[in-house]
């Protein structure tokens, strides 16, 4: 064994230490982002979640919109409900995809927490959610008038996120 080789373990450990040190300072793992941002929405159509209400599709709508992925059983969805109402009041069009949900539960949820949605579709087996590359509930996509996904918001929308999403919508115009 050459002399320098004796110092290799220390060098290797220094690398390991650097890696775990970096692990300590980096932001915590966030859920996987959709790789479809910048691409067209996949074609999809879902059954309407509530009778008499329009449903959401993957077709281009001609104007920018938010697609909100939510569920009545999802606790953070309650937290973001006021912010969604705020976005709607600011003129945003919000379509919703309800994940693994029943019409009765959805209706009750909207009754209790407000209903900012222009259209709601039912995604019983998360098929559309998976096709969009969404990794959890809630999530919100910004889609432009040509049906191209411009931005993905992970987790619930907080007060601070409202202007960000409005700006993204403006950019998508």
């Amino acid at each position: 064994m050459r002399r320098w080789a004796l110092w290799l373990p220390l060098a290797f450990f220094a690398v390991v230490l650097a890696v775990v040190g970096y692990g300590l300072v980096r932001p915590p793992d966030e859920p996987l982002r959709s790789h479809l941002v910048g691409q067209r929405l996949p074609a999809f159509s879902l059954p309407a979640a509530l009778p008499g209400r329009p449903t959401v599709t993957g077709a281009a709508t001609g104007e920018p919109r938010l697609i909100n992925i939510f569920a009545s059983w999802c606790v953070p969805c309650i937290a973001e409900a006021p912010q969604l109402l705020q976005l709607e009041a600011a003129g945003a069009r919000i379509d919703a995809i309800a994940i693994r949900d029943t019409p009765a539960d959805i209706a009750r949820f909207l009754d209790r927490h407000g209903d900012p949605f222009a259209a709601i579709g039912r995604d019983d087996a998360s098929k559309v959610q998976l096709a969009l590359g969404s990794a959890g509930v809630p999530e919100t996509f910004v889609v432009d008038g040509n049906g191209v996904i411009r931005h993905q918001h992970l987790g619930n929308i907080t007060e601070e996120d409202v202007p960000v999403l409005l700006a993204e919508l403006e950019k998508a115009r």
Partner: protein
Amino acid sequence: MIAEAGLAALWLAAALCALQLALVAIGMKEGRGDLIAAVRPVAMVQGLLAAASFLILIWLFVRSDMSVELVVANSHSAKPLMYRIAGAWGNHEGSMLMWVTVLAIAGACIAAFERQLTSAMHAATMGAQAFIGLGFYAFLLFASNPFARLSPPAPEGLGLNPLLQDPGLAFHPPTLYIGYVGLSIAFSFAVGALVTGEVGPKFARAMRPWVLIAWIFLTIGITAGSYWAYYELGWGGWWFWDPVENASLMPWLAATALLHSVSVLATRDGLRAWTLMLAVVAFSMSMVGTFLVRSGILTSVHAFAVDPTRGTFILVLLALYIGGALALYGSRVAHVRSGAPFDPVSREGALVANNLLLSVILAIVLIGTLYPLIADGLFSEQLSVGPPYFNATAGPIALLLVAIMAAGPLLRWRSDRLGALGARLRFAVIAGATMALALVILGAEAGVMPFIGLVLAAGVAVASLAPLWGRNLKRTPLFTWGMVIAHLGIAVSLAGMSANAAFTKETLAAARFGDVLEVGPFRVKFMGVRPVAGPNWSALEAELRAVRGGAPMRLLPQARFFASPPTNTNEAAIRTLWDGQLYAVMGARDDDRWQIRLWWKPFVTLIWLGGALIALGGLLSLVGRWRRERAAALRESWL
């Protein structure tokens, strides 16, 4: 007042630890034998105080003292006694206290029982042990005080995760901790040897029993942990290559390599530098593994809160201890090198191969575990490294290692001939060939790796018994039995893993009452569902009746609901038969149907039986060595 007494005991222990370090440092520098002589009693009292502090914490949990923050956060007065006790180490602060306690007791044990080392070497070892201890005391007292009070006291505790409320899991952490921290002794020995330059057979013989004890506990801990994951998780998997499991595997791999290199050092005075390296690496892996799990940098959903101060604190300790030992190694090991020469084809050669391959597997596990962090840091890319990677890389190397293990014990020390080895292995080759032939004739679709695994297991099982061939079994030394049984255990375990991978049958169904399902050779009838209640949970229990010829067997899988904290769990029903296990899980309800998952896992039990044999082999070896050392000591005193 009890909590304050615990804290006081802890402070006193820390003070004695500092004293121990000072005694060694001054004593060695100034050649003061009287100071060195005081080290032993100080270390023993320190061990007692740390143990007292830990017992007091357990007492607080048993009494459900809701004025102590830790108890409130991790216990509940309605929990059964056993889980109140286990709650003491089922959290960050308590488990750190347990870590420090084991460390202090390990130090006390060296002080009390280690008589083989020269006094300089013993003192240096005790100094190293105190140096490690001091850092962890500081961490505990300044960043993780387990005895902090809550004012005003809470009316009730928050409870413990229900999945941790399992008799096996309750006592799993102490077992592993004794293994992890036991390796600190080898680490301190190595540091002592680097400082004093005394490395040789005598040193190896002194270190071996300590390594063996730690290794036995690690083996038991990992084997048991694997079995609990198997029955608690409810999907029939027994090893997931999860960072947390890898953290326990890495010290074991290093300790296994260390055990083998120590025997070269003890018998042939070879592999001196290697042995010191492995002794440093083994405990380093314990610390790195614990840190990785504890800091939450790899397992973001882990129960322990991620606190950057704590993380940084431990990181600094790691840098200090491991970096310090490795720097000492780099600068000093040149003075201790050189040993007896040997040929590649020899017992030493096989042991070098063992060390090499175990180290490579260790490196693979470490790199694979850390790589997601590296990819994130260097390329801002999220990557997941899981079973496919580890199986593809570590798998073949492990198989090669097992093959060499078959040959190793049959080789002579220093030099041997390959032809002679072939002759000694002929029955093993016949056994392997028979297994291969049987698998082909039976038309078993095993897949490549499981096929090789089964053939190898058959051959190695026979080869591992070969060292007993032609011997008087009664006069065969106990440690030879130990080696034979441990190696047999590897073969048995490999057979179980391969059989499970090759022949498992799975049936997933949504069944109505009265439906009959088939899984492997069994017909399973779904009889019905009824509610049952436990001490702090309620459950729905399915009744299944399984038949394979003979009398029907009843299986009662449960879906449990715990109230505090509100959680659902699945309790698998497992029926062990001579040739495998029938494994049943009850899932969610779907109108008038219930999700039922069934597995028939032929010979899966061999995995853990093998693990138990490996640990038993270690125990026999320990007792055998101990007896021989004692006999030798007696002879010396007579002469």
